[in-house]
C-alpha cells in the first residue's frame, strides 16, 4: 500500500492552510491532501518563516472536518459526478483547526498556503500540548491516538490552582469513575506517589458513595477488566504497567436505620460486615463538633429565626455536657457553673471531669437529646428554659423542635454511642451515604467536611486531602445559603492553600454555586444534556455539540495551561466500580464455596 500521507521534513504533511477563507490567530482551515486521513482531535502544526528570518510554528487541534465536491453546484450534480460519471468534479476535504499554541509566542495568524503536518508524539506533541511547560505532569487520560494527556499537578494540588469539577449527565457512570481514576493515578501509581512527594503516605482521600453500594468495592479487582482489550494498552500509555485495585481503603457505611438501641450494624448487603465499619457520631462528638448546625441544612432554614435558636442551643449543649462516667462517647447534661463561657470554642477548651448518670440528663443517643431539648424548649412546659431560646418567640421554638423531631427519623440513628467516627487513616476512605435521606446525607457531608477543614486549619498545605463528592448541586446549589454550602464555598476559596481539594461532580455545573465551579482549575465534562451544553462557555461550539453524544469514557478537559479544551478518554478501571464488577479475593471465594458445600 502506498503511504497515506507524504513525509515532509518535520513530519507527515497532510495539507495546506486554506487560503480561500481567512486564517486567524485562533482558527484556520486546512485543505487536506487527497489521501490524508485527519480526524477530530488530531494535532497538527504549520511553520512559517518571518521576513526577519525567525520561524513561527502554530500548533492546533482539529475541531471539525468537512468534505465537498468542488464543481458540484446542485445536489443532483453529485449524482452526475459520482454515479453517472457524466460531469467532472474534485473532491476536497477540509478540517478546521483551533490554535493551541504559537511558538514563539507571537500573535500572528498561520500563513495561508503553508504546509500543515501531523504532530508526532515526542517534542512536537509536548510543545503543542504545553507539556514542556508543565513542571509536574500528571497523566489525566489518553487522547484519540492513545497518547497520554497530561495536566500540571501544581494546578491540582493547590500550589497554583486546585479543585476539579466534573460535569455530565448521570447514568453514563463517568463522573465518579473519572474521579476514582484520578485518585488511582495519584495514590496507586509510582508517578502519583512521586508527585505527592514525601507526604504521600499521609495524603488521604475521602470519597462519598452516593449510588448503590458501588464504591464499596474499589478495593477489589474488576472482574470485567479482561473484557476490555484496549484497557491495558491505555493504562500502559499512562505509564501504568499493571493496574489493579486500590490497596489502602477504609469502607464506612451508616449504622442501619432500623437498629435496636445499642446495636451497631450497617445495611450493606454486598460486603461482609467485617469489611465495612458502621459510622456515626457519639453524642459527645456531636455536641463538641457543633454538628447540630448541619441538622438544619434545608434551604428554608436559613430564612427563618430557627437558626438563631439553633446557634444558642448548640452553645448551651456544649456548656451543659459532661462526659458520662464509664461510657465513652456518652454525655450527661447538667447545669454548668455560671462562670462557664458563652463562647462555643472557649467551652470546648475547658477540661471537664466525667459525671455519673445521676448528675443530670444522660445522653446516649439522639432520642435522649431530643427529650432534653423538648423539655427545655417547649414554651408551655414548666421545665422551659429561656436560656436555650435566645429570646425567640414561642412559635420559633416550636418550629425548631419540629425540625429536630423530623431529623430524628432521618439521621437520629447515626448519633449514638458505639459507632465509629469516620477517620482518615487509609489512603482512600469511602463513606457510603446512598441509603440515607437527603437531609442525613447533607448532615454527614457537612459534618465530615467541616471536620477535615477544621483539622487542616493552620497546618500547611501538605499532606493533601482530596474530597470526592458527587451531586454537588445538592450540597451547594446555585441559590440560597446553608451551613454545608458555606463549608463548600469556603473549601473552594481557601481549600487550595489549606490542601483540602475538592473533586466535585454534578450533572450540570449551572446548578452549582458558581464560586465553587469557578474555582476549579481542572474542568472536566462528560456527556452533556444537549439543553445545558450552552452553559459550558469554555467548550468550543463543536465540542458542545459533540459532548451531547459522548460515549462513556470520553470526556473533555479544560485546564489553565492549554487555551483549548481537549477531548480525552480514560481507561477502563482495573478496580471494581460497581457491585457487579466486584470480584471477591480467592480466599473469600473459597470460603463461600466451602460454605455452600457445607449447606448441602
Amino acid at each position: 500500500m502506498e503511504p497515506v500521507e507524504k513525509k515532509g521534513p518535520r513530519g507527515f504533511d497532510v495539507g495546506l492552510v486554506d487560503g480561500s477563507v481567512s486564517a486567524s490567530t485562533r482558527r484556520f482551515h486546512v485543505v487536506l491532501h487527497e489521501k490524508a486521513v485527519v480526524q477530530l482531535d488530531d494535532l497538527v502544526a504549520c511553520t512559517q518563516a518571518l521576513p526577519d528570518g525567525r520561524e513561527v510554528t502554530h500548533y492546533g487541534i482539529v475541531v471539525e472536518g468537512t468534505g465537498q465536491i468542488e464543481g458540484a453546484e446542485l445536489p443532483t450534480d453529485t449524482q452526475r459526478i459520482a454515479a453517472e460519471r457524466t460531469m467532472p468534479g474534485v473532491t476536497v476535504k477540509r478540517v478546521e483547526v483551533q490554535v493551541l499554541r504559537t511558538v514563539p509566542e507571537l500573535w500572528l495568524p498561520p500563513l495561508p498556503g503553508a504546509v500543515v503536518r501531523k504532530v508526532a508524539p515526542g517534542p512536537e506533541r509536548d510543545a503543542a500540548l504545553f507539556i514542556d511547560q508543565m513542571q509536574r505532569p500528571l497523566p489525566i487520560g489518553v487522547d484519540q491516538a492513545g497518547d497520554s494527556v497530561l495536566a500540571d499537578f501544581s494546578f491540582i494540588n493547590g500550589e497554583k490552582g486546585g479543585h476539579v469539577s466534573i460535569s455530565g449527565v448521570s447514568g453514563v457512570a463517568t463522573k465518579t469513575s473519572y474521579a476514582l481514576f484520578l485518585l488511582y493515578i495519584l495514590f496507586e501509581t509510582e508517578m502519583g506517589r512521586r508527585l505527592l512527594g514525601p507526604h504521600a503516605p499521609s495524603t488521604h482521600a475521602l470519597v462519598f458513595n452516593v449510588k448503590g453500594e458501588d464504591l464499596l468495592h474499589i478495593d477489589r479487582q474488576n472482574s470485567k477488566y479482561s473484557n476490555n482489550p484496549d484497557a491495558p494498552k491505555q493504562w500502559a500509555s499512562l505509564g501504568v504497567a499493571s493496574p489493579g485495585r486500590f490497596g489502602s481503603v477504609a469502607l464506612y457505611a451508616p449504622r442501619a436505620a432500623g437498629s435496636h438501641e445499642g446495636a451497631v450494624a450497617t445495611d450493606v448487603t454486598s460486603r461482609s460486615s467485617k469489611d465495612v465499619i458502621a459510622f456515626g457520631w457519639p453524642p459527645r462528638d456531636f455536641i463538641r463538633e457543633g454538628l447540630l448546625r448541619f441538622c438544619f441544612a434545608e434551604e428554608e432554614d436559613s430564612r427563618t429565626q430557627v437558626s438563631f435558636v439553633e446557634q444558642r442551643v448548640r452553645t448551651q449543649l456544649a456548656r451543659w455536657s459532661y462526659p458520662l462516667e464509664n461510657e465513652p462517647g456518652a454525655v450527661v447534661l447538667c447545669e454548668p457553673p455560671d462562670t462557664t463561657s458563652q463562647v462555643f470554642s472557649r467551652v470546648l477548651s475547658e477540661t471537664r471531669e466525667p459525671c455519673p448518670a445521676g448528675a443530670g440528663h444522660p445522653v446516649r443517643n439522639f432520642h435522649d437529646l431530643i427529650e432534653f431539648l423538648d423539655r427545655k424548649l417547649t414554651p408551655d412546659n414548666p421545665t422551659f428554659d429561656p436560656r436555650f431560646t435566645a429570646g425567640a418567640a414561642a412559635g420559633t421554638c416550636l418550629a425548631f423542635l419540629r425540625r429536630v423531631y423530623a431529623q430524628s427519623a432521618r439521621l437520629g440513628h447515626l448519633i449514638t454511642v458505639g459507632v465509629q467516627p469516620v477517620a482518615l487513616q487509609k489512603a482512600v476512605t469511602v463513606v457510603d451515604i446512598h441509603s440515607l435521606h437527603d437531609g442525613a446525607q447533607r448532615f454527614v457531608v457537612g459534618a465530615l467536611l467541616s471536620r477535615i477543614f477544621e483539622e487542616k486549619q493552620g497546618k500547611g498545605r501538605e499532606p493533601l486531602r482530596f474530597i470526592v463528592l458527587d451531586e454537588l448541586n445538592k450540597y451547594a446549589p446555585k441559590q440560597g445559603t446553608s451551613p454545608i454550602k458555606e463549608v463548600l464555598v469556603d473549601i473552594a476559596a481557601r481549600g487550595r492553600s489549606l490542601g483540602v481539594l475538592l473533586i466535585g461532580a454534578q450533572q450540570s455545573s449551572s446548578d452549582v454555586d458558581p464560586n465553587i465551579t469557578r474555582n476549579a482549575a481542572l474542568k472536566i465534562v462528560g456527556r452533556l444534556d444537549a439543553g445545558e451544553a450552552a452553559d459550558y462557555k469554555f467548550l468550543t461550539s463543536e465540542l458542545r455539540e459533540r459532548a451531547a453524544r459522548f460515549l462513556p469514557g470520553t470526556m473533555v478537559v479544560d485546564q489553565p495551561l492549554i487555551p483549548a479544551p481537549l477531548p480525552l478518554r480514560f481507561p477502563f478501571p482495573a478496580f471494581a466500580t460497581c457491585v457487579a464488577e466486584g470480584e471477591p479475593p480467592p480466599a473469600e471465594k473459597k470460603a463461600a464455596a466451602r460454605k455452600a458445600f457445607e449447606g448441602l
Partner: protein
Amino acid sequence: MSVYFEDWSVSYGSPYLIEPESTHEDKPAELVEDGKTLRFHMGRDHGEPLPPLAFVDGVRRGEASLYKHDPQTGEIIHGVAGAHACGAVVGTGLDRLEFHETRVSRLLIWGAGQRPDLPATESGFSWKSDSIVDRSPKDLLARLQERMRAAEAELAESLGKTGYLTVIDGPLPYGRVIDAPILGYIKTHHKAQLPDPHHRRVPELQRGERTSLFHRKKHCFSAYLRLAPRGPFSGPWAGIVRIEIPVGVGIETARREADRAAHFLPRFAGIAHKDPRAPQNLQPIGALESHLRHLLGDTRLAERAVREAVAHKSGPDQGPIQREVLF
C-alpha cells in the same frame, strides 16, 4: 408558420444562425455514405468497448488594452494583454470523470508587427509577446482566439495519441494533419452544410440518430446528430449538433466513429436547468469551461498586474513607482 421557444439562454443567442439565402452554398457538401439519399442511423457501439474519453476545450479573455505611442510621429499602436486556458476532462468509464491537464497562458499581442515586452510581476504574472501585422483591436483578440485554438488542438492531439477518444469543442483544427482519434463537436450552425432538400430533413433526427456522413471541408467528414429529444416548444434544430471526423481515418472507420459518437454523446448532454446552452453544451465541457475560467484567475487581479508591469517598465526612467498609483 409555427412559433417556437429557443432553449438557449437569450444572452447566448441562437445556435441556429443560418440565413435563408445562405442555405444554398456555393459548394454544397456531397454525401459519402448511403448513395445519394440522406439516411438516419441510430448510434451504436458495434460491440466494442468505449476507449477512455477526453473532452477538450479552451477559454480566453482579454484582460487589458495597451497602446504604444511614439511622441515624435504621434503614431499609436494597439496591443492587448490577455489569457487563454485549455484543458481536458477525462474518464475511463470505470471511474469518475476528472480534470486532466490544464494549461494557462498569458499573452501580450501587439499590432503593426511591434513586439515590446512587459516584465513579470512579483505576484506571479508574466506574459509572452506576440505580434500581428494588422492594427485593429478586434484583430488582436482574434489572434488570442487563434492561439487558444492552437493550444486546444495540441492538447487534443497529444491525448488522442495516448489512447483517448478525444472530443474537441469546436471544429477540427484546420490546416493540420490529424492522425489521432479526434472528434470535432460543433454546437452552433452558421452555414447550411447540405443541399437544401437534405438540410430540411435534418430536424427529423431522433435522439441518438445521426445523418449519413458528408464531405464539405477538405480535411474532415461530417454528420449531424441529435443529442436530446425535441421538447414540446423547442425549435426543429434544438438539440442538433454536428460532428467532424478527420478524413485520414478512411470512410469505414469514419462511419464507425460516427455511429459510436451518436451512441455515447447523448449521455453527456447538458442539463437544461444548469446550462444556458443545454443540451448542446455537454456536461463535461460546461464544467471544464467554468473550471478554466476559474483558473484564469480574478480579472481585477490580472488587470492590476498589467498596470504594475507597465509601471515597472516605465519606472527606471521616471524614478520609483508610487505604490498608490498601483493599488
